[in-house]
């Protein structure tokens, strides 16, 4: 096993995944990818990467959010606590929440999606690498 830090990208946009892979590999990370949420969850559980870059995954709109809640409920601590960087600026635009099921659809004060960082599209390569390094240094502490 390499001592390079491993990043899993979960995104259905294969072109974007390629661009991100190039950037992150160039920055010295080991990168794998999954193109849908179920595969992503499997890969997360089997590989236990150091960090996940997760897209909201349109057109389903909420698939990425469901991924977060499912992963955070995983039986294994090492899987449950993998830091996530979300590829969206949705936190700036809405106070809607995306529970796997139920809930009234909005956050109350002090509630938020349990991810470590958000980054908006289009992704600025330098900013992505910077944020990924910050999160890896910080560990599973939530944003």
């Amino acid at each position, binding site marked *: 096993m390499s001592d390079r830090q491993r990043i899993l990208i979960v995104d259905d*946009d294969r*072109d*974007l995944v*390629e*661009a*991100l892979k*190039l*950037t992150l590999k*160039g*920055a010295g990370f080991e990168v794998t990818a999954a193109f849908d949420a179920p595969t992503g969850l499997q890969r997360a559980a089997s590989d236990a990467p150091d960090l996940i870059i997760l897209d909201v995954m*349109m*057109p389903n709109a909420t698939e990425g959010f469901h991924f977060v809640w499912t992963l955070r409920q995983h039986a294994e601590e090492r899987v449950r606590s993998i830091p996530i960087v979300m590829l969206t600026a949705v936190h*700036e*635009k*809405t*106070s809607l929440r995306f529970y796997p099921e139920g809930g*009234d659809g*909005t956050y*109350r004060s002090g509630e938020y999606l349990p991810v470590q960082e958000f980054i908006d*599209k*289009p*992704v*600025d*390569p*330098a900013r992505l690498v910077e944020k990924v390094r910050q999160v890896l240094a910080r560990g599973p502490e939530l944003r």
Partner: protein
Amino acid sequence: MELIDRISWLIRLRWLAVVGVVATVELARRIFPVHLALAPIYAVVAAIAAYNLVLTWLARRLRPFPAGSELRLSGIVAQILTPRALRGMEGEREAARAALFVALQIGLDLGALALLVHFAGGLENPFIFFFIFHTVISSIILSRRATYLQATLAFLLLLLIGVGECTGILTHYPLDGVWRRDAHADPLLVGAQLLVLGITLYLAAFMGSTIAAHMRERERHGALLAAEVARKARLLEEAYERLAELEKAKSQYMRKVSHELRGPLGTIETALKVVLAGTAGDSPATVQDLLGRAARRAGELAEMVEELRVLSRAREARLAAEMSEFDATELVTDVVTELREAAERGGLELTLESPGEPVTICADLAGLRQVIDNLVSNAIRYTPPGGRVEVTLARTADSLRLEVRDTGIGIPAADLPHVFEEFYRAPNARAHTTGGTGLGLAIVGAVVRQHGGTVNVESAPDEGTRVTVALPIPSRACPNL
């Protein structure tokens, strides 16, 4: 209902007649040397007053038309009595009932008048012409046929008095000193008088009912016209609703398209940025330059797509679903902080004045962020270096005021009315910079309208622009929280 109002009028008129008869009798007794048969005359007056009381009571009962308690009219009577213009219209049954009521009243009145005339000189009495007065009243209220019936009744009563008194079958009560003593017994005089009275009665019936029919026809025409106007108004309303539906569908379509475009555009921009960052290997300066241009244009396109998305969303008026509670002070501070770098690049001084405390409002966060961003970005974009952009947020008793003032190129007066139109850019704005989609202020207008607020632009070319947004602050919290 009109006919019922006229019944009340008739009853009031009758009280006036009672007073009038008494006054006339008393006056005549004092002025002329006549000996009137006071007992029967006052008996008739008392009878009029009595039946007017009964009629008043009946009219009150007639007004609400309690079911089952009404007079039942056979079809033929209704046909005869009801004015033609009222037939076939709503409330015809009530109209027929009221018409019968009026016909009975006028019949009673004619009888009373005949008695009064009989006890005060018969055909010699100058008030004989009141029979014509009754015919005119009939023509105003009743149908043409009913009017002729009433005129005939009046003529028969006059005939009875004239012939009866002439032949001695009825007692003649003379008006001494007013008329020739034996005039009532002169068949020629009585015949001539009856002829004139008869002609006058039927002429009055004809003229009165013709004029009344004409007026009723106009009323009916007016009512039909009003109904037609109401129908057209309904059609117009329906057309407007369909148009609003179409507009909404168009906005939904625009929102979906812009939504779909966002993904690929983001990927294009990201890929270009990755290449430009050199991660994919070095590229020659010319390639770098072209890719830089492509990235910039992709960025502009993405901005336009995002603005279209926000605009269409604001147009869909789905506000309730987008509302949330947040601190407006924090939002304005955030946006101004984000834009500070752009202001510095443009050599501008960007200032923010805001209440030191949080101002919680219930609004569409993304929409309002866009409003503030667009206004401040515009001010920065159209203000030459060395200028100033001042952002002021203030809270009044029931509204939130955001003012963005700049020392920029301004908007010519001729362009001011168009600045909220989609894709509109004033010529001096186009000359100043190639950036800008022409959607910024359209979004501001749409979002502010959606929130029930107002936006006002004041500007002078080469001096600057001041945009003021006022949003109502609802007293209640967000309904969906």
